[in-house]
């Protein structure tokens, strides 16, 4: 054990950091794209369901395949890995944002509109705060999946903890596989915990209490 750490310790830290950045950037991009898109979809309810199924199809493409497809398109390295993961992050966030915002109490929205809120004020002051717990659930789900899938980034030279796993497989060294898997799992758990703290912080006080009693 000690021997392993003295031999691979530094590499392990670097790979963990790589793993974290790859999935972190992907999820950030996912949030930046999927949340506004989800809100936009609630404004076009007739098209929304069809568009969401379309995004759902992307999700069904096997992850290994999507990475393979990206090689001719974008070559190898971190960038295509991030883009591939980003595509995967979209659906849960998009679907939860859409559902969360769509399910905001119509009466509250009508009251807001009747008070003289414009679209932007309605989104920022009512829809996002009230949909936040649902949106955050989507983000957490995406994050946990993405940290797992990020291991595949190594397949197209993206680095990360996947390097350990692939090396372990190629060299028949189970300890390397374990060294890649355990940190990835811990990362996923930590990220989930961190996000749930953020969710609690961001959810408005009165809504937290109301939401729990619902």
């Amino acid at each position: 054990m000690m021997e392993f750490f003295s031999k691979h310790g530094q590499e392990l830290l670097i790979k963990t950091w790589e793993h974290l950045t790859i999935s972190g950037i992907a999820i950030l991009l996912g949030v930046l794209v999927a949340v506004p898109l989800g809100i936009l979809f609630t404004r076009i309810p007739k098209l929304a369901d069809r568009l969401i199924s379309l995004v759902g199809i992307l999700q069904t493409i096997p992850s290994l395949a999507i990475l393979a497809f990206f090689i001719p398109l974008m070559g190898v390295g971190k960038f295509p890995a991030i883009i591939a993961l980003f595509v995967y992050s979209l659906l849960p966030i998009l679907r939860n944002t859409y559902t969360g915002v769509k399910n905001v109490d119509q009466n509250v929205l009508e009251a807001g509109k009747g008070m003289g809120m414009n679209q932007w004020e309605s989104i920022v002051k009512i829809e996002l705060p009230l949909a936040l717990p649902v949106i955050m659930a989507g983000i957490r789900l995406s994050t946990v999946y993405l940290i797992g899938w990020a291991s595949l980034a190594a397949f197209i030279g993206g680095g990360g903890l996947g390097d350990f796993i692939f090396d372990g497989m190629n060299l028949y060294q189970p300890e390397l596989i374990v060294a890649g898997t355990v940190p990835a799992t811990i990362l996923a758990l930590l990220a989930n915990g961190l996000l749930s703290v953020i969710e609690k912080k961001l959810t408005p006080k009165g809504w937290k209490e109301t939401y729990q009693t619902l």
Partner: protein
Amino acid sequence: MLQFQHVTKRYPGGKTAVKDLNLTVDKGEFVCFIGPSGCGKTTTMKMVNRLIDITEGTILVDGKDITKQDPVALRRSIGYVIQQIGLMPHMTIKENIVLVGTLLKWSQQKKDERAKELIRLVNLPEEYLEKYPHELSGGQQQRIGVLRALAANPPLILMDEPFGALDPITRDSLQEEFKKLQKELNKTIIFVTHDMDEALKLADKIVIMRDGEIVQADTPEEILRNPADEFVEKFLGKDRLIQARPDVTTVKQIMSSSPVTVETGESLKQAISMMRKSRVDSLLVVDEEKRLKGVIDVEMIDRNWKKSTYVSEVMETEIFSVPQDSLLRDTLHKILRRSLKYVPVVDDQHRLVGIVTRASLADIVYDTIWGDGLEIEEPIAAAAE
């Protein structure tokens, strides 16, 4: 204040919700729109703050065409209360009350002051400002809903069945509270309801609608007295028409016009013989011009007949009377509350014109319970056949 000119709303499916509606609402008027569901009352109201667009015609608020104004600015200048209350669950009561202030970018100080000022209007403690909507009862929540509409001090307030979702007792007290508030603040109110009792209680003017058209628009008294057609009558209900009679009947209509009187200058002897002749124990005292001066009863005469000679010396001058055009409804309460046996009725010159006795009231209550004398005769006649 508010004018509807040939307002029509047609939905894309071809359904016409409101047909060529014309109405003028004065400043400070409390107008209730009432009618069966689907009659277009809510549509009419929502066209005022442009939550629904007008198809044809014009609505003027304060003389200005609403379609020429920015809808967001227009809505901020008009109060709005909905049945489902629609308080923001994630905002404190204070933030909810001054929501329009926030949209209008008021300073925090101004918002704090306004919130405190408003919450006093509905007799809720200031600590409530820091609470959240889910901590309040339904009645308290709707009080906040009303305050929220008042926050920016709009002259016009639209209310869509605001008390419809409350239990009857809460509804009753809120109606009373709100009517008082409206009189104090002199707001113009457009109030949609399907509850006739509510409309009769609150409105200065009731607008009865059917199939997108106004059937009758008048004061509650006038509608009860002269329903425009069978639809209105049915909508009011027979019970209410009969029961409402004390509400619109004046004292003059039911008083007995020949009270037994005695003149101030007459002697006690004459008074007592008059009582004996008419089989009564008290007399109303009038002067030569029939002006009501007081009352004298057999007990007063008995106590004073040795010391005094004339009615004017003995009579009780502190006497309660009602003007002949006052409403029976009010008189009835006074008689019952003060446990009076009768009330003299006077004209504007304070001349005695009649008397309302407990017997006249018994007649009214009888009619209310059994209907008009005419109505019970019919089944009897029918049975005899």
